[in-house]
């Protein structure tokens, strides 16, 4: 059966052919543009987010750098504290600095270190364990316990203390001295300089031997003075 098409409709469709082509073209273009826009926009947004994150990190680092001026006004000198930290935890073990630290502690506390022995069993590549024998009265021993961490100019820790209330003390204590190689390149994560840092710096500076600080300040090369004072009586 032959389908009869109205001539009028055919003519009207023919007249509007341009519209149909246009709408088809625009639809295809629209689909293409939506896909293009989505891709380009997500690329741009990703790039923007990445750079914004980088800039935020950079701003944080710049803020930290600008903090140095503020710290200097608060009498916190990073160069000085870094030298103190290096003296407390040197990169390489320096046996003379250990003897010097024990000497300083003895002078500071009146708790006389009478002998010492390296405890190789407890020593590692990053810590040296020394067993000392010391003598002194109660006050001297308590003063020694107050100052041993920083008072000698080397960071010292004690694993265990057996304390007995008595008037004079003659005891053996195991002291640990530490070394550590600090690599600046390994840490590039975000750094914050907090009030806790300031408190710690003040605490370290107040307990670190004053004569070593003076030596440090007078030393123009910026290194710690390692010309140790000679001692008239070693122990």
């Amino acid at each position: 059966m032959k389908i009869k098409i109205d001539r009028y409709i055919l003519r009207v469709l023919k007249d509007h052919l341009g519209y149909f082509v246009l709408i088809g073209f625009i639809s295809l273009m629209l689909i293409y543009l939506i896909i293009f826009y989505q891709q380009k926009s997500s690329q741009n947004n990703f790039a923007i987010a990445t750079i914004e994150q980088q800039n935020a990190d950079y701003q944080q680092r710049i803020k930290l750098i600008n903090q140095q001026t503020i710290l200097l006004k608060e009498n916190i000198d990073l160069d000085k504290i870094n030298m103190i930290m290096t003296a407390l935890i040197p990169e390489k073990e320096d046996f003379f600095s250990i003897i010097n630290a024990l000497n300083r502690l003895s002078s500071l506390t009146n708790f006389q270190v009478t002998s010492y022995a390296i405890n190789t069993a407890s020593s590692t590549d990053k810590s040296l364990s020394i067993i000392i024998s010391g003598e002194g009265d109660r006050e001297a021993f308590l003063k020694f316990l107050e100052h041993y961490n920083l008072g000698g100019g080397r960071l010292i820790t004690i694993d265990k203390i057996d304390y007995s209330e008595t008037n004079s003390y003659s005891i053996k204590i195991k002291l640990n001295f530490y070394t550590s190689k600090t690599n600046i390149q390994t840490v590039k994560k975000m750094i914050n300089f907090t009030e806790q840092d300031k408190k710690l710096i003040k605490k370290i500076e107040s307990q670190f031997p004053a004569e070593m600080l003076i030596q440090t300040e007078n030393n123009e090369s910026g290194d710690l003075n390692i010309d140790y004072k000679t001692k008239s009586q070693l122990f």
Partner: protein
Amino acid sequence: MSEIKRINLFSKQKKYLKIEQYFSWFRTAVIIWVIGFLTFIGFILISLFQQQQKLKTLDLQRKQYLAFLTRNNQIEAKFIFYKNKNAEFNNIMTNDVNFLPYYRVLNESLKFSTSAALLNTLTINKDRNTDFSILVEDYDTAFQFIKYAETDHFLKNFEALTLVEFSSQLNTKTLLTTTLDNQTRLITLSFKG
């Protein structure tokens, strides 16, 4: 008489008018479609342009920041060095017994409980495990101290505290001869915390 065939132009007029109306709407829709399309293109161009501008600004900012950081990398290095040393310092200090604050707290607590109790021995290790013994001269003082040791004021200094030994003997030691009579008892209370 033969009948003349005529085309009735008006018979389907209503239908054609309807079709004409539909196509008129179609043309209007196409025009709106084109305008919408052009607006969309405009939106895309503006949006992409804005994004590009933002990217340029941020990139410029990044370059400025980087230049500043490069100029001041020595200062930053000082902070990094300090932070590394600080981390090492704090890490090392966790291995320290930190005896004196605990000794002082314990002594202060003893003074607060009873003046007759004396700290005899105190052992602390780096894990903060504590053993201490108290010397008292009579049972009343001993019980007074035990009562005090159960209060929050004393227990706040320990995560856990156990009385591990309670011993009594005649005072023959010289340790407390200045404070105790030779005939009194020496009572030792040993705690673990």
